[in-house]
């Protein structure tokens, strides 16, 4: 079946690029618009099925974006289907994302009155090229986006952190017109007008190969040179090459970059080559001998000679050649992910759809088989194992499992919002009501109601009425008094544009006019009969103007006024300049303040007391400043401010017990002098309750007298003064634990409640191995576990049960940087940033920072690095007795195991969490860990396991056992 889809519905402009969405429901085209570049997204259904085409309720065009200033040369969907990248003559690459909850709207002023059914918004613009962008390509797994340009460069963008640029590949001496990644992401290849094809390594972004021989003869230029890499990675096929003065598509072997073969037969230069994403094997026919055949690939070649050829690598001749399909050169080809459908677009402004059968192409290999081919050749698996395609055939055996699978599917659906396009999706229900007022009411009174002020220089300034806020996370947070734009917004936009929708003239072509022909695939289909409706919209403008008749000439003159920019009016611009200046000044003031604060903080930290969490420190600034700046210093004229400050901040750390932000502490030394003995007063006020104590002057100054006193939040003394061996260097109180690090490098922890020592004068010597390391940070967890951070970036905690120091964090650990578990982070469990582990490892854990750069390291390496890292985290959290963090990392860990398919580890983990089903006297299994019941944890882990069908046996096994135990 061959169908021909048209054009831009109103007039025919070249289509330079076409790409089918990975889910096969829609496709994008890019090309020339009226006075800008144009990206359009179309529904696939009307192309595939005739009944959908005839059904007027099925939308044909879903969205058009004319944000590109000039012709769009390339559109490409990301592999995950969430993004669309487009590149154009305006030197820009734009990345689009679907805005989920905004209803349809029209592009104002565009001559087609068709509403955008879906809203795709530009989320980022990539600027670097200094010339037209000719091709863009997403790397496997969407790690990078590559773009090439007539500025002779290729730019690699970090697709996980737009608009970050990874590198710019220089080396071509001509316009770069095509790009392709190899299927395992090891290379990217480019073809340029400089008669060369270059292969670049992704490890170091250096050139791997420079192939020139097949291109030496090439004369003339093609608009694009879209080359393609075969899905098995073995072959790279170039666009325009020459062999014996005939145009060819050159086959380049991966092994040694040999150029011995080519696809011959086109009469003019090859513009585009596109491999079918599937690998095929010969269809087993009944009766024929079942000898195993070699898998092969399928490749489509389009040319300037307007013909298209489809080749199988197992055949010497093309499978099919289609001549005269178009009036002009073929520009781009896109296969469906199933490998059985193909869209071809042409300069003549049309798109054709080709449909193949399994009989023609063969049996496509499953993703699993494809993976195993990749693994055999390249030693790393292509995709994480739980791809939909692979599992679609697996039978779900357990109803619980089914539940999780369904939940997962619905959640992914809502996340990616692919949306069913068709009549059911447009079920409008008007409720665009704001504060009880309908939009209609608002509009009636808008002029009266809108707020208008005068600026300082007397200009009118209108505050616009916000009628809806934007939905996506990419945009700023919610506004007051505004309503989110609801999915039902279609009717709202209709309401907004009554006059627009009403005047769609009958002369307009009835929607799109897909006209399939049912001729079997022949070499020469009646192309002309396939033409889309000629548009007769040209007359609209003049007919509407007929009433005014007469002046046709002036209208021409007037027309130019629509597009020419007005000269800026000097008076007005000056006004703007001055306001800009003002706002800039304003914004600089808080910045200065912040810097001042910063200085204060840093001077404090000199006291080595800055061991409190930085955050607390910050929130405590105010009271502390009061103490320092205010009373104490004033009262104590001859005092020693520095020491006092130490005391206050030290005691302040004590008040953390109460966790009240507004605790004021005051210390007065030498308050009363009785018979020559000096007394100090410690005063604490909290919520208006004051207490004060008199102390022998030196007791608090533990620095000198090495005495430690402990008070309750009401000021009761809890322990008699403790005599320490050496002066205190750091002091912490958390819950009912007190921790002291002394200058003599020993550490003690007391449990005040039980009046018991947990850690007794433990020496830090063993961890301060070197000479230069010193204690930079110390911490006491809620469970009374002491943690010490060292200047060399390592952090240790003392495990009182093991009676050893254990390493819990090492900032220099390369594992941390290489681990890539972001795919396992779940959106609903927020990262634990306040736990002791997180504090010691830095609030912004850099884990995985290098991971994206490392996709070229073998997959199993990365996998084991991540595994090791996650297991480290788990063990550390356990030692720190940090329950929340343990749970957090446990879930990530299990998700990672599930994704990577490590069944043995997963099973062991479950076993450990479940414990023995039958209790006997000899079992030493603890039912709880770090405050969690292990079986409860298992209950949380099981849904994660349930997400991967491969583990349904494991899931069922433990699910049943848990049920059994619960019933007991």
């Amino acid at each position: 079946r061959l169908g021909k889809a048209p054009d831009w519905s109103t007039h025919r402009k070249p289509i330079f690029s076409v790409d089918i969405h990975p889910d096969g429901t829609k496709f994008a085209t890019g090309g020339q618009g009226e006075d800008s570049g144009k990206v359009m997204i179309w529904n696939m259904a009307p192309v595939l099925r005739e009944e959908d085409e005839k059904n007027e309720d099925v939308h044909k065009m879903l969205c058009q974006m004319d944000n590109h200033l000039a012709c769009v040369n390339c559109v490409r969907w990301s592999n995950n289907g969430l993004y669309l990248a487009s590149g154009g003559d305006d030197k820009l690459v734009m990345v689009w994302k679907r805005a989920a909850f905004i209803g349809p709207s029209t592009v104002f002023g565009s001559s087609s009155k068709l509403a955008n059914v879906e809203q795709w918004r530009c989320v980022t613009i990539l600027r670097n090229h200094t010339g037209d962008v000719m091709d863009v390509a997403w790397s496997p797994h969407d790690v990078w986006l590559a773009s090439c340009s007539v500025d002779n460069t290729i730019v690699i963008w970090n697709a996980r952190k737009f608009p970050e640029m990874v590198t710019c590949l220089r080396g071509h001496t001509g316009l770069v017109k095509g790009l392709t990644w190899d299927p395992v992401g090891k290379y990217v290849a480019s073809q340029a007008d400089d008669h060369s094809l270059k292969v670049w390594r992704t490890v170091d972004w250096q050139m791997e190969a420079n192939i020139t021989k097949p291109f030496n003869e090439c004369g003339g230029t093609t608009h694009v040179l879209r080359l393609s890499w075969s899905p098995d990675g073995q072959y790279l096929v170039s666009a325009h090459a020459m062999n014996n003065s005939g145009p060819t598509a050159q086959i380049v072997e991966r092994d040694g970059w040999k150029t011995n073969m080519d696809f011959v037969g086109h009469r003019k230069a090859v513009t585009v080559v596109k491999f079918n994403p599937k690998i095929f094997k010969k269809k087993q026919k009944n009766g024929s001998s079942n000898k195993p055949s070699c898998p092969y690939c399928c490749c489509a070649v389009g040319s300037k000679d307007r013909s298209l050829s489809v080749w199988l690598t197992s055949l010497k001749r093309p499978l099919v050649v289609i001549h005269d399909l178009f009036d002009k050169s073929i520009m781009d080809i896109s296969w469906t992910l199933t490998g059985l459908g193909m869209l071809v677009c042409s300069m003549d402004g049309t798109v054709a759809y080709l449909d193949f059968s399994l009989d023609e192409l063969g049996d496509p290999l499953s993703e699993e088989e494809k993976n195993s081919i990749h693994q055999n050749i390249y030693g790393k698996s292509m995709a994480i194992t739980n791809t939909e395609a692979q599992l679609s055939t697996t039978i779900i055996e357990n109803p619980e499992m089914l539940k999780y699978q369904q939940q997962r599917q619905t959640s992914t659906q809502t996340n990616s919002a692919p949306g069913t396009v068709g009549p059911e999706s447009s079920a409008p229900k008007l409720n665009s009501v704001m504060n009880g007022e309908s939009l209609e009411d608002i509009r009636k009174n808008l002029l009266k109601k809108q707020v208008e002020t005068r600026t300082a220089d007397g200009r009118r300034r209108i505050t616009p009425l916000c009628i809806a806020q934007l939905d996506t996370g990419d945009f700023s947070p919610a506004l007051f008094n505004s309503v989110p734009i609801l999915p039902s917004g279609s009717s709202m936009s209709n309401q907004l544009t009554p006059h627009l929708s009403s005047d769609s003239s009958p002369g307009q072509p009835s929607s799109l006019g897909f006209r399939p022909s049912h001729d079997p695939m022949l070499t020469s289909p009646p192309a002309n009969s396939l033409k889309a409706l000629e548009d007769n919209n040209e007359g609209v403008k003049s007919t509407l103007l007929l009433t005014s008749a007469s002046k046709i000439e002036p209208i021409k003159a007037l027309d130019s006024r629509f597009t020419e920019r007005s000269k800026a009016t000097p008076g007005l611009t000056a006004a703007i300049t001055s306001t800009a200046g003002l706002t800039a000044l304003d914004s600089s003031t808080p910045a200065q303040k912040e810097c001042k604060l910063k200085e204060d903080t840093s001077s404090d930290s000199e006291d080595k007391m800055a061991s409190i969490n930085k955050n607390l420190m910050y929130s405590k600034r105010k009271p502390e400043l009061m103490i320092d700046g205010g009373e104490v210093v004033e009262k104590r004229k001859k005092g020693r401010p520095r020491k006092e400050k130490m005391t206050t901040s030290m005691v302040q750390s004590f008040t953390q017990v109460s966790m009240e932000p507004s605790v004021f502490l005051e210390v007065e030394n030498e308050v009363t002098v009785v018979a020559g003995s000096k007394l100090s007063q410690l005063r604490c006020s909290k919520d208006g309750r004051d207490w004060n104590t008199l102390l022998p002057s030196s007791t608090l100054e533990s620095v000198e007298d090495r005495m430690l006193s402990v008070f309750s939040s009401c000021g009761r003394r809890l322990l008699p003064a403790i005599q320490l061996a050496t002066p205190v260097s750091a002091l912490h109180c958390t819950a009912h634990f007190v921790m002291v690090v002394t200058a003599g490098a020993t550490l003690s922890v007391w449990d005040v409640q039980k009046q018991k020592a947990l850690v007794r004068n433990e020496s830090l010597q063993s961890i301060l191995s070197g000479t230069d390391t010193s204690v930079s940070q110390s911490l006491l967890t809620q469970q009374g576990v002491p943690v010490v951070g060292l200047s060399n970036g390592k952090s240790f905690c003392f495990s009182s049960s093991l009676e050893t120091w254990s390493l819990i964090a090492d900032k220099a650990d390369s594992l941390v940087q290489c681990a890539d578990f972001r795919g396992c982070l779940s959106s609903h469990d927020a990262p634990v940033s306040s736990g002791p582990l997180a504090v010691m490892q830095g609030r912004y854990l850099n884990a995985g920072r290098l991971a994206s750069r490392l996709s070229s390291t073998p997959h199993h390496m990365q996998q084991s690095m991540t595994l090791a890292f996650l297991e480290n985290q788990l063990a550390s959290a356990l030692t720190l007795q940090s329950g929340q963090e343990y749970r957090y990392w446990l879930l990530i860990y299990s998700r990672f195991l599930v994704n990577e398919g490590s069944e043995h580890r997963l099973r062991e983990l479950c076993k450990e969490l479940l414990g023995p089903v039958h209790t006997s006297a000899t079992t030493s299994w603890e039912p709880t860990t770090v405050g969690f019941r292990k079986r409860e944890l298992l209950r949380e882990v099981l849904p994660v396991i349930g997400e991967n069908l491969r583990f349904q046996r494991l899931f069922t096994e433990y699910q049943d056992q848990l049920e059994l135990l619960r019933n007991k």
Partner: protein
Amino acid sequence: MAKVQVLNVAVLDNPSPFRNPFQFEITFECMEDLPEDLEWKIIYVGSAESEEYDQILDSVLVGPVPAGRHMFVFQADAPNTGLIPESDAVGVTVVLITCTYRSQEFIRIGYYVNNEYTDPELRENPPIKPDYTQLQRNILASNPRVTRFHINWEGSAERMEDSENVDPSSNSMLPPSCLPGKAPPIGILPDNSMDCL
């Protein structure tokens, strides 16, 4: 990529007597909070022959503009008839709505305007000196002509490289680096300003 998209312009009070004020209800959408105001202008083209007869009917600042969909009504007085060439009073002309951000025009919406006498008698035999009280203004609201220009939406520090659509005169008039207070004097902005956060 334009941060501001005009979604709709509704022409209110149309058709109307020539001397009535222009009213446009403008709906636009903004991708992110704009630190500066938008400036909207209504320009009446007095004569097709020359820009000389263009009249800026009014200009307003619109702001603050947070991310979202907004609307407002832009009202401006009718053109000064004294500035319109008599021969051009009756017939087709153009009214333009332009919007600028940081004094760069990024959208221009044009409408044909037809001014004609309602009285058939006058229509047949128009007076040599136009009688504006009898003229009716009809804006061809159904056929807006929209031209979008690419501008630099970011701070003026990074200047857009392609000057294709940038009016050179506005550039020379407003060298962006010279905006007072915009470019921080060297040394004042501390290097560690990030640490404060």
